[in-house]
């Protein structure tokens, strides 16, 4: 798979795919969607989609697609070659979501959770297939979160499509299996060919799953006290966050205690009203120095006589 666009700039997302088969424009098609690399604390998450004419469902079954997780790397690579060589009947597309994009999205001011991000990515792929002129009629999606809610969400956006969201869709529908193979192959390649912008060379970072000892060792060994981790790491994962809290210098952001303060405010409000007598108290008269104009307060300007 040619991921050179992603390899030259692995901070940003990238979409790669086949041309649309002529037959997929004429005949009604089914489309499958699956993802790879959702759990790991390292590397990109990849969304894959495959589509082909409904009339050729049986032909697809014979190609031997199965859930990408039960296949080994070699088998997946072989099956992906098959997908690539079936351009007359099978179209495919993948989107690589860079770990930097995942971190940045999840750590925005208004948090964007991984489920919403996944849903939006799937929606984007369906839209792109339709925009390219594929005659999509049926859509099969491996679920993220609650299948019924996800299905309703997709139905709302694509009322004309017949949408099925299911658990383990990749082992039930060959078109989803094919999509999962594309996604997994792309994820493996992106991880294998990762170039660290930070000028470090890493021998072994393991599978990327937080429980893997090699991954844990990588996270501990390559922790920079100021910057934290290279962009390869998803900062929004609790594994990464906990390590930073423990081993990196503390960083305070202006929105850090927003939640905290809201809690306190709520507590104060619910604690009841002020005592009536506070209204009759005389104002404190101690501070007679004139106050600075709010112009200076708003600009954080102060007189400094010492540091």
């Amino acid at each position, binding site marked *: 798979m040619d991921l050179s666009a992603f390899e030259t700039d692995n901070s940003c997302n990238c979409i790669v795919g086949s041309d649309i088969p002529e037959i997929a424009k004429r005949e009604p098609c089914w489309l499958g969607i699956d993802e790879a690399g959702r759990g790991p604390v390292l590397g990109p998450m990849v969304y894959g989609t495959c589509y082909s004419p409904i009339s050729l469902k049986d032909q697809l079954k014979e190609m031997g697609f199965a859930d990408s997780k039960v296949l080994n790397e070699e088998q997946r690579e072989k099956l992906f070659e098959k997908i690539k060589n079936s351009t007359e009947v099978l179209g495919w597309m993948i989107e690589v979501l860079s770990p930097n994009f995942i971190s940045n999205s999840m750590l925005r001011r208004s948090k964007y959770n991984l489920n919403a991000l996944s849903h939006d990515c799937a929606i984007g792929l369906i839209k792109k297939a339709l925009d390219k002129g594929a005659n999509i009629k049926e859509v099969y999606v491996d679920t993220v979160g609650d299948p019924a809610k996800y299905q309703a969400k997709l139905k709302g956006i694509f009322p004309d499509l017949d949408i099925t969201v299911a658990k383990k869709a990749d082992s039930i529908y060959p078109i989803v299996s094919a999509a999962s193979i594309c996604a997994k192959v792309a994820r493996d390649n992106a991880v294998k060919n990762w170039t660290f912008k930070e000028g470090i060379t890493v021998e072994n970072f393991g599978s990327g799953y937080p429980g893997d000892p090699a991954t844990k060792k990588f996270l501990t060994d390559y922790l920079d006290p100021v910057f934290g981790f290279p962009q390869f790491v998803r900062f929004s994962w609790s594994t990464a966050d906990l390590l930073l809290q423990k081993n990196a210098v503390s960083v305070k*952001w202006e929105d850090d205690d927003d939640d905290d303060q809201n809690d306190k405010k709520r507590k104060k409000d619910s604690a009841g009203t002020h005592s009536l007598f506070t209204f009759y108290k005389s104002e404190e008269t101690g501070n007679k120095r004139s106050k600075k104009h709010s112009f*200076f307060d708003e600009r954080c300007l102060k007189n400094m006589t010492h540091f």
Partner: protein
Amino acid sequence: MSLIHVDKNSASQARTTKACHLMPCEIDYNGPAKVADYFDTSVRHDQGTVLSATFRGRPLSGKEMQLPDGYTGLLLKELHRPYSEEEERHLKVSHKFEQFTYWNLDAEPSINDKIHKALEWTHIAKTLHSPIESQENSNVSEPDK
């Protein structure tokens, strides 16, 4: 409160740097950091003059800013920390800067940013503190003659 000395000689020797960043967070650290490897490599030029970058996984939006005319930015270093409040302190200028990049957390830079507004003061201060021009003086004093 103690007396603070800033070494004037060090100011003339200090190099001018362009790599000065005003971050939207407090980093509890003073000292060398791998800015070129970890931060500069994340800086991207978005549309127009807006920059984007990432720090600790969070998205930043930034803009380059020139200091107002007649102002120089100084980065001061204290070689020995004072032991008590009364002790005199000696600071050296380690770098000078005429421009810097300021970064917002997940918000496009705008003229409403505090740093923009703070620098407005330099214009107002200039007007407030410059001597009133002689022409106006003579206008006021004319009727007395």
